[in-house]
């Protein structure tokens, strides 16, 4: 752990944002809203085109240049569809659910730093709406509120498939939020702050002289766990169990139509953009270029890097959807609780120990002793673990079934030399197979 810890930047973004006039805040709010909506329209098209390319078909190519306005046309059409509410639906909750799922999705983006210090209409500011001291928690809180939309929509629809989707979603998001929260802990421990601006600032370093000091490289296990749990958190393939169309028709939004359905659609894509942006912020250095220094790394250039990195994550979402089959529910839960959460906990312990060692300036001898103790413990635990039962690899035991099955070590005998078989000369009218003309 030789990476240089830079603490000087902590709190800088918050100071920069503190004197924003109210009109600038409003401009930023509108800009973020527009950015997210445009990203949604773009993502739908991009997803359809990329998945189409993966499946050797052209994809949407009719509306607008190269079909890039298809999602806009679809969205407009969706708004004018008939709005249907089932008889058994709970009136108010049915109406509120899409709204609840949509608002937090937009809200979470307010703490994402899009770029560093820029000059916006003559005002020195950072491209970020707010920089709270608990910034990362805002995203987690928003995603935990957003689940209410899904759960309530499933319950309020008053029909079994949406309810099943809602139940799955509730269990899924609670489980994966734990894994997600734990994966963020290591980043917070390294930065010493929960503010997103500070986290990006702390990654503006280099390790080993050339590699960027991004937490995705330094804390790779956390990064991997975050990426897995962000797919689970946004209900995307291969974890799209709440809306598994082959099992639950449409899942939680089966009964929804028109604008309400459009809101769910919007919320899903905005959530994808938000978790991708958070992954960029936490693990890929946010708006920093992959190299240190001033070159293409200040002001508005940050926005470019940020968008490139976020689009990379969004492409992974599409790629996963085009590649992987949906997981079974119990497998999915097992992955969350038995793999991701324990791995996170062990990894956080390791990071804490390493950080303490780095801070307290231990001597080499002390570090080696600590390392030896850890290795010894690992060995001890591995000796105590019972051996895995050796599986019978010879396949299904078929003995006793009564079926004529050849033995596994069957040796096929060599064919005997051919001999001429003497065939008895049977008269034609006694043959077993007749020509059918006898009856005539």
């Amino acid at each position: 752990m030789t990476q240089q810890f830079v603490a000087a930047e902590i709190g800088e973004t918050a100071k920069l944002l503190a004197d924003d006039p109210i009109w600038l805040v409003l401009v930023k709010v509108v800009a973020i809203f527009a950015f997210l909506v445009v990203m949604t329209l773009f993502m739908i098209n991009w997803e359809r085109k990329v998945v189409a390319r993966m499946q050797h078909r052209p994809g949407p190519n009719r509306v607008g240049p190269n079909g890039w306005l298809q999602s806009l046309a679809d969205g407009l059409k969706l708004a004018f569809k008939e709005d249907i509410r089932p008889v058994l639906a709970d009136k108010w909750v049915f109406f509120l659910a899409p709204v609840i799922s949509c608002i937090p999705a937009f809200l979470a983006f307010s703490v994402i730093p899009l770029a560093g210090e820029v000059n916006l209409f003559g005002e020195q500011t950072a491209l970020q709406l707010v920089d709270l001291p608990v910034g990362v928690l805002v995203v987690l809180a928003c995603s935990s509120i957003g689940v209410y939309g899904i759960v309530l929509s499933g319950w309020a629809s008053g029909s079994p498939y949406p309810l099943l989707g809602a139940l799955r979603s509730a269990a899924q998001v609670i489980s994966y939020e734990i894994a997600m929260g734990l994966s963020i802990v290591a980043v917070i421990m390294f930065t010493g702050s929960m503010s997103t601006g500070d986290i990006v600032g702390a990654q503006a370093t280099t390790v080993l002289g050339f590699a960027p000091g991004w937490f995705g490289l330094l804390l790779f296990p956390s990064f991997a766990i975050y990426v897995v749990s962000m797919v689970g958190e946004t209900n995307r393939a291969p974890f799209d169990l709440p809306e598994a169309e082959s099992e639950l028709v449409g899942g939680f939004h089966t009964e929804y139509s028109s604008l309400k359905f459009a809101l769910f659609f919007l919320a899903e894509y905005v959530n994808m953009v938000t978790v991708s942006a958070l992954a960029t912020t936490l693990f890929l250095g946010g708006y920093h270029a992959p190299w240190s220094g001033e070159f293409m790394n200040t002001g508005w250039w940050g926005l470019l890097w940020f968008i490139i990195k976020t689009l990379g994550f969004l492409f992974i979402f599409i790629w996963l959807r085009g590649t992987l089959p949906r997981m079974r529910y119990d497998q999915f839960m097992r992955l969350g609780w038995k793999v991701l959460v324990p791995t996170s906990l062990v990894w956080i312990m390791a990071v804490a120990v390493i950080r303490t060692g780095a801070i307290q300036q231990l001597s080499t001898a002390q570090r080696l002793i600590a390392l030896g103790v850890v290795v010894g413990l690992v060995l001890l635990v591995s000796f105590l673990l019972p051996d895995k039962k050796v599986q019978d690899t010879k396949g299904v035991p078929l003995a006793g079934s009564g079926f004529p099955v050849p033995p596994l070590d069957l040796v096929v005998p060599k064919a005997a030399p051919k001999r001429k078989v003497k065939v008895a000369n049977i008269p034609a009218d006694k043959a077993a197979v007749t020509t059918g003309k006898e009856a005539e």
Partner: protein
Amino acid sequence: MSLLTFLAQQQPEPVQRVVDTVTTGEAITFWVLGPLALAGALGMLFARNAVHSALWLVVTMLSLGVLYMVQQAPFLGFVQIIVYTGAIMMLFLFVLMMVGRDSSDSVVEVIRGQRLAAALLGIGFAVILVGSVGRALTSVEPRGLAEANTTNGGNVGNIGQKLFTDYLFAFELTSALLITAALGAMILAFVGRDGKPAKKTQKELVEERFQDGTRVGSLPGPGVFATANSVATPALLPDGTVAEESLFEVIEATDRSTLSDDVADVAGTGHVADAHALKGSES
């Protein structure tokens, strides 16, 4: 511990939020969210539907969370939203949805003296609550959080330090309590498999089926012919006899006369709806 002090020392003075008086914005937020929280609490009590009750409670919790944030405790506010609104109320909703929307509260008293005990405890709690709130309103001088939020690592750092130094015992005790509760719930919900074998895996099922050997493949489907599309049509064996395994025992056990209306309907010999004679079915 040392990590925490390190974190605390690392943070220089964050943004100055030294205003310790009630600002206009805070007052407005309070007068908007206070009634909302109260309405949520009342709605929770008086809502007929259990899920609606839970939703009203969510409104109260969200309002409280935002009030914490406004009162210079951002960490507490967001943790309130994540933990209480996000996790605990979600579990409540989960259970309520499993129970079903039409189930009403049971009014049968299962434990003897339950209501009396509940009333006593409720009154006791109310007395404690009124006493402490009254004391807080009269004899405690508010100090504000500006100092705690700006020095020694700010809001989060200070909370962490307090939790793991002064309140370590209470903290550990709470976690022990929660773990005990979770274990207890698991034991209560655990369906004992004493004597019964564990659920068979897919592989075991396959092996069992082959060792049994009576039927390895699936049962024959119904014989759906060009003349009939009913699942009650039996499949025929190559020699023209009925394949017994294709028959569905429920259908076979049904008396044919109970189906005569349906048969007539399908055959087109029964009642035919006439657009000019809107009289309903003849009976």
